């Protein structure tokens, strides 16, 4: 069995690449980090990798809006590489700032030719917040990352995570993960839905189910002592975020 290889994009201000790599490694993958300039070099081969990851952080300080500058740079420098990567069946994961980037570049919900159709904007609270949220998977979703998941518990850490789109675009979305209460119920309100995201949407996938973006950070809950209530013996293994990474690695392995 050959190793599943994951490439994580580093941009100036990316800051969750190491723990995201650790989560993939825990799932048995081999990981590699690269800057956009390194990826744009002729010597870099996207065909060496099966999973492309846009980790969390503040690419370019979110200076012109979250993910804006990186999205523009992607479109300018890597579009000709990313489209074939997706068409070949590669998996793409965007977490937090990476999700914002995918959305602004039009990669999610896609297709890229349509341009940007949804956005992630300021939380209803008007501020950056870090808190733990329950995420419940949509069993109808084609998303390969969320198959078999019921409810997981992971942190968010963002100021611009509210998913907004015109009603007809919202209708069309393949929602992979919802913000819910601990029982998996939607419409639980703040702080269960921490940012006011429409329809409690936490993560979406494209029409192939191969491209997945979400605001929360499953990579920050991959062992029991990450759980904020592990000292109360409340850290159930089924709540771990690791399953997202495991699903991705398993899917590639089973190809």
């Amino acid at each position, binding site marked *: 069995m050959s190793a599943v290889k994951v490439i994580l994009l580093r941009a100036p201000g990316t800051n969750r690449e190491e723990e995201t790599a650790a989560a993939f490694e825990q799932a048995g993958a081999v990981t590699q980090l690269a800057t956009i300039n390194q990826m744009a070099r002729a010597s870099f081969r996207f065909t060496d990798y099966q999973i492309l990851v846009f980790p969390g952080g503040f690419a370019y*300080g979110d200076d*012109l809006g979250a993910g804006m500058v990186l999205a*523009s740079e992607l479109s300018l420098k890597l579009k000709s590489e990313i489209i074939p990567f997706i068409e070949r069946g590669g998996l793409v994961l965007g977490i937090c700032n990476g999700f914002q980037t995918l959305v*602004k570049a039009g990669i999610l919900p896609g297709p890229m030719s349509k341009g940007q159709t949804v*956005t992630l904007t*300021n939380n209803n609270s008007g501020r950056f917040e*870090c808190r733990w949220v329950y995420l419940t998977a949509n069993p109808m979703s084609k998303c390969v990352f969320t198959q078999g998941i019921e409810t997981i518990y992971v942190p968010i850490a963002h100021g611009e995570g509210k998913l907004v789109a015109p009603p007809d675009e919202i209708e069309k979305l393949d929602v992979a993960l919802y913000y819910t209460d601990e029982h998996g119920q939607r419409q639980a309100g703040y702080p269960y839905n921490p940012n006011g995201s429409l329809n409690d949407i936490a993560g979406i996938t494209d029409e192939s189910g191969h491209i997945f973006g979400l605001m929360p950070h499953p990579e*920050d809950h991959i062992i029991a002592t990450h759980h904020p209530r592990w*000292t109360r013996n409340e850290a159930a293994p089924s709540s771990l975020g690791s399953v997202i990474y495991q699903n991705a690695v398993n899917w590639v392995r089973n190809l």
Partner: protein
Amino acid sequence: MIYTVEVCLKAGQPDPRGEGIVRSIHDLGIPKKEVSISVSDCYWLDGSLTSQELERIARELLVDPIIQDYNCHALQSDNTAASHNITVTYNPGVIDPVEETLMQALSNMGISTIRATKTAQRYRIEGTLTQDELDLITARLLVNPIIQHVVSETPSAFPQSPSYIYKLKHIDLLNADETQLAQIGRDYALNKDELAAIIVHYKSIGRNPTDAEMETLGQTWSEHCVHKTFKARFNFEGQVIDNLLKSTVMRATKELAPPWCLSVFRDNAGVIAFDDDWAVCFKVETHNHPSAIEPYGGAATGVGGVVRDVMGTGLGAKPIANTDVFCFGPPDLDFNRLPPGMLHPRRIFKGVRSGVADYGNRLGIPTLNGAVLFDERYTTNPLVFCGTIGIMPREMSQMGRQQPGDKVVLVGGRTGRDGIHGVTFASEQLTHDSTELSFTSVQIGNAITEKKVLDGLLKARDKKLFSRITDCGGGGLSSAVGEMAQETGVKVYLDMVPLKYTGLSYSEIWISESQERMLLAVPPANVEELLNIFVDEGAEATVIGEFTSDRRLTLYYNDNIVCDLPMEFLHGGIPQMTLTAAWQKASRPEPEIVPSNNYNDTLLRILSAWNVCSKEWIIRQYDLEVQGASVLKPLVGTKEDGPGDAVVIRPISNSQRGLVIANGINTRYGDIDPYWMAASSIDEALRQIISVGGSLEQVALLDNFCWGNVKEAQDLGALVRATQACQDMSMAYGTPFISGKDSLNNEFEHDGKRSSIPYTLLISALAVIPDVSKTISMDFKRDGNLIYILGNTYDELGGSEYYAHLGYIGTKSPKVNAATARNLMLNLSQATTQGLVRSCHDISDGGFGVALAEMAFAGGLGAQISLDRIPAESAAKRDDILLFSESNSRFIAEVEPAKQQEFEDVLHGNVFAVIGEINAADTLEIKGLNGEPVISLSIKTLKEYWQKPLRW
């Protein structure tokens, strides 16, 4: 020409920035009326563009088409009675990081015809407001004249920095009369003795100093760089203390000399061993004055500065956690009590908080531990303590050593006038004209620049490409280069330093405090590879000189020598100060309290006190999870909102070893006796570590002294006493200090009246523990479990929250019996490690009553307690003393009945007692000494009072 793109929200989209300002308008005391504010972002591009190019820039870079609209019209003032436009932009020389990013993004797009960009915010205020009200809103909420000003339309041209024409400047020291000497002393912050030593030096070489030489001496001999007060010779109550620092705090460390102290009081941060392979370092800095003037930028650059200290420790550490402690005036301070020109505490608080959060979050460093104190005496001098913990391979824990011939490489941000005239500028009367002053001195930090430098440094470090590293902080290049080259000598070519804009003189380049810069010594063979690493990271790195073997500091500007100083004089020439210190306890009466038979209201009011109430509003705006190392978070309990005692992280992912981070600060006790204030702060920090299951095995301490001034004997005496307590407690607990810092000038003069901060000592503590899975949190876990109090209670209400609530200070502040306390801590730690304790909380601000309430509402469980079971000295046998005394070295612990015997066996020999039981009811009931309830409150009410003050 200058093009405008204005980006605004589409109609109907919520505008959190505008709503935030509307809320703040109400805070200003402007009577509530129908006002709405919308905010748009303006980008000005200077150059030449086709209209298609301008549209493309707007669409591809600036506008989110789902929620935003834009237009490209030049701004014009179009105010009406019910609609006002206020456009705010940055002053010349203040660089918004967005401008740099925009320039880079334009270049990615292939657009090269833009020379410069500027940003502005436009506030559209709808509603009937008087001109006075508008002016107040503008002045208090929208503009900080230190960095911003209002414009009415798109500028016709961006201001240009004047060019600089080289002329070597000498300071006529040798022929100066007394008045002139006094002026020179003020210009370079040198005292009489120091000036005299400098005159002797220059007489011996027969010339006057250059301005760059005087600047270098002034910076190198400053309090900030050499801590001359702490190194002075003190006459204290008949005793001579030669070098206060060495003979107290450092002496304790030297005597304790644990093998795990790897590099202490030497480098930019103190370094201790983590395990066989790794070392950790810790540094806490203050950034007080800049934060008072420009809270957001001041605090942000404070974080940036201390992170660089850690990056510049040993051969470079990776920052893994930040801490922050703030001291502010009360958020509800009456505006009438605010001296003119000062920002209101609430605005300082909000600005500082967001500066610390934005910078730390962007750097990807979790901000985990902290505290906020409020006291009216901090109104004009807020304190901002920023701390960073770093980790590095143990073999890289020692300061490097460069060889003559190694290159001096400057990495990171470009150099501007930042910090040069900051303080004098700030103290001037500010008018609208001041904003037109030449390129100013306050910088907005750019966290992404620092992140790029950090990422590159760690790569270069792991490839062993540099021989030494330090940060550029206070004093800029002058202190960084001067210190690094002390043992060798150095030549620096100031004209090679990359500048933000033209017009800087050689001495401005030399002393600029521009942020996000690090200095490296690089063997010539490695220079190319090192520079390439930074190119890959998008960070600038430049060779600006080389180390020599002549032990001289030589500076060139375009081949002219502008500074030539022997290292021996620069670092050894400063005369030691002699100071007279004395300390006398203030005479105050002990208040007479009429006892009550019910303390419900008192407890609720103390829970709502600014110093006690929940700080969740701050904590949640920090990224607590980034780097994936958290074990015990700052907020704990069934709803994840209870006040944890200390945080625990597990920095190496394949090891169970952990770090516990804690702090102690007890300003009010210092009003009674600074000795016991310092002792209490150390005890508090250690209690927090023990509470979460840490031990005293390997605890390192840091001190940060902030004093109003050190001119009066009494203030110096207070400093001596606090320092002596640090020595005594450090020895008694076996916990060495590894680093420290002081800021001794925090006073403000207004109308001839001086206001000074209270004596403030922050103790930060870092403990290494072998197994994070043994740690516990403070929230009650299960009904039926027993509640213990550990440690004796004394009649020590002095400086307590209870007295503060009654308007008193008192005379009996809490003392520390370190021998007894140490024994208790050792045994409690052992009990926790053995799994005998389910929850534990240290008793601090607000006393037993507050600690118990916090455990109950954090766990969502009730409790029944009898005060008569609390072990206490006889004078303390009074309900209010038992409830609210802040006696040190006490804990509340939860133990399962099945483990009672085992727990008590481990604790044998200490003072402790079972005082009650946890129950599933939602009420906290405390019976007084007479057996009747003195407190009976629902945990919901308790929590509500604790949470509501800072639910902003």
